């Protein structure tokens, strides 16, 4: 019989085994490495807070992914505009105003993902980046297994189409 509750050693194991995958998923969801770190941190913080609800018999990754999904939604809702330092009379200080890490992290893949409809993107990321089984993704999203399969397939096809078009440019 599965035991309820998360011990400290369980938690550390969860971090070791799932943090990387969750970070990747968070990054692919948000497109920003800082937000991704925050998301993962908030996810594990929430996991530790609700450790009594942890069911060792069920999918750990799916549990964490469901928390991540909620935190991402919270963050999206509460997102406030970034601090504006540049005013109406912007002096030319010879300084690039854009994020210097943009080229490194905002790749074509991310642009392609952003062009996907939300439900396709989310399903694809849960299955491919979050490495959930199709059934786990179906349970998490509350949709039939067949829908998950078709969404993943359609998402891959559209993403492939975008990347090939981008490669021709």
């Amino acid at each position, binding site marked *: 019989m599965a035991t309820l509750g998360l011990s400290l050693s369980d938690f550390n194991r969860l971090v070791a085994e799932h943090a990387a995958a969750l970070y990747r998923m968070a990054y692919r969801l948000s497109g920003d490495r*800082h937000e991704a770190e925050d998301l993962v941190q908030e996810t594990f913080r929430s996991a530790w807070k609700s450790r009594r609800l942890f069911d060792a018999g069920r999918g750990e990754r799916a549990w964490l992914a469901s928390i991540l999904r909620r935190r991402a939604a919270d963050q999206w809702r509460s997102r406030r505009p970034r*601090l*504006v*330092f540049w005013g109406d009379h912007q002096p030319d*200080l010879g*300084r690039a105003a854009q*994020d210097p890490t943009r080229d490194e992290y905002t790749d074509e*893949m991310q642009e392609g993902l952003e062009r996907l409809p939300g439900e396709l993107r989310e399903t694809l990321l849960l299955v491919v980046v979050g490495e959930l089984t199709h059934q786990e993704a179906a349970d998490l999203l509350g949709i039939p297994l067949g829908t998950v399969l078709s969404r993943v397939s359609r998402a891959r096809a559209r993403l492939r189409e975008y*990347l090939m078009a981008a490669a021709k440019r």
Partner: protein
Amino acid sequence: MFWADPNPDAWLDRRLCDLPVPSDLVDRLRREVALGDEVLDAALRDVSVPAGLRGRLMRITWTRRRFGQWVRAAAAAVLIIASSLGYMAAVVGLVATALEPSRPGSGPPVLEVTARSDRLDSTPLVNMEGVELVSQGPATALEVDRPKPQLSPPPVAARGRDLEVWELFAQAGLGDQPGKLDPLLDRYLAAWPETARASPSWYDLPELKKVPGLVRQGVQLPLVAGVDPSFVILYRVHPFLIPAAHPALCISEVPLGVDAASFELTARFLEDGQLPPREVLRTEEFLAAVDFRYPKPNGTPLALHAAGTASPFRGPGLYLLQVGIQAREVPLQPREPVRLVLAVDTSASMRWGGRLEMVRRAVQRLAEQLGPEDRISVVSFSEEATVRAEEVVGSDRESVRAALESLEVGSSTNLAAGLREAYGLAQRYHGKPPGPAQVVIFSDGLAQFDGDTGGALQQRLAEAAAEGVTLHVIDLVQGPVGRDRERWLPRLCRAGKGTVHRASTADQVFWGLAELLTRRSQLVASRVRLRVHFNHQTVAAYRLIGHEAMMFAGLKPAPLETDFYAGQSATALYEIVLTKRPGGQLALADLEWISPETGQRTGIRQPIHRRQLAKRLADAALYVQAAAVVAEAAEIVRETPEVLLVSTGRSAVRFRSPRWSLAYLLALARQLDARLEQNASFMRFLRVMDQALSAKPARSGSLEDLSSPMGL
């Protein structure tokens, strides 16, 4: 035609196959294969995970598990006590205000404060222009008040609890006709009618947030009628105070013992391309980070300087007034040559609070005072000890600098290893000039030994002390002192015949070292206190910049008295609105201290005149130009709103004008007096703020990280 072809079938076949093939078909098909599901999936997962993420995640449980329950219980208890005290204080204040008799013809607040001045036998020691130095006998006679400031009583109409502030303004000469609102003040409303907003009621207060704990910061606003204490909590800036509205509002006292902690924190965050949480930023600490180079005292321990300018940021009618205090330098020469062995703790915790950087800056400053006869060695220790510089000639500053630059943060604190290595060096050169070594440990770590190791160490230190090698500790702890620390460090120092010097700023570290070097105290003045008495006839309103008591509504405000060491300075900055009434004296600045040599209380009283305010920033004193930029930059980074004075005498806020964004401000700063470029601390400030331009906003939850036991 096929009938003309000898082989009609072959012709048909050729025609069937004769179809142009798209030129990119092959490439496309290859890419299709290359972009198969596996390749696509691998590309999706190809996101590098930041180093240290797992460690940070694992700390979540560490802090929660050990401290969560304690913190929650303590916070609940403190909140209950704070609420009770706050209510009691408010009730007492209201009752006191209500019971205060309306005395016909009673004088202005300053007169009440100095009512017994005629009994004071004060003897002027120095009479310079506008500066009066008075001696008031021993500190025990301090209850006797100051000489009477020459301020005339307020108008009759301006007294009583039913005071209408607009009437007060009109009587003070600010409005052209009694009862009519002043055009100067109305400009604020006219310019931003949609954003200017009167002070809110208590019902608009935001939800209480989790805070790190009781911190002695800021000044508490007087709990008198006309002052809205919720303003500071809501907007994190002080409102304007009207000196004529209540006696208590004529006097402003400013805490002088401010360090640059939040600026150093900002500098460190910005090195990682990120802004720190705005809740931890404090304007007065940004001001403390810059040496404004006030003129040195001339024959007195402290000098008081005041100057101002028309504010370049808030439009006409508003002035910046700066009051600066500068302590005299204590000469480090002549002195005996020394041999110093500096052992620097480089454990992980030295990274926090800028401690390692503090040591670097202080030792570099010390190295500038060393001569060719001095010798200096540097040892670092974390899990093990390393010699970074051995027996370097004091005048070889480059070697000292290189040794300090080579210090890198490690993991644990092995104090025993550090002591062993440092004393090994001391022993190696024992008997050679310039004499026995003074070993100095810079550490914030707990000295944890078992009984045998501790006993053996004490014995070795005592043996070395008998040969003249002494041990001193610069204790860099910035929080509560633990029991282990209390037990071991003094014991080790006692055994090593040395001293423990606690320091939380680079200046304090340097003063500790300077005392070792010269064997003379660097204390210049103790229990220094600044009071600014505003003249209600010439100053319609004033607002202290910085020093907000944010934590639990100022339940534990900063101490108003502080000690001043050699070369130390302090700054108070106000925004003021002047009345149109003629009269030059705006305020009286009172600086008092106790002389460490005589134990007597001494002071400087200096009037501040209207002529000390420049008409524009570029014409102001250099220190005013620098302080104006620093304070405005701090407020922008803190994301605080601008405070406006509206016709009712209340304060309102509006979002900071983008025109005065940080980029614009920094561009302006570089167009100010060229002599500011020679001020290294000011230029460093500008460089740090440059980094803020491209920095990312603070991460959510980072305030919590800072408040954890592993943080600051």
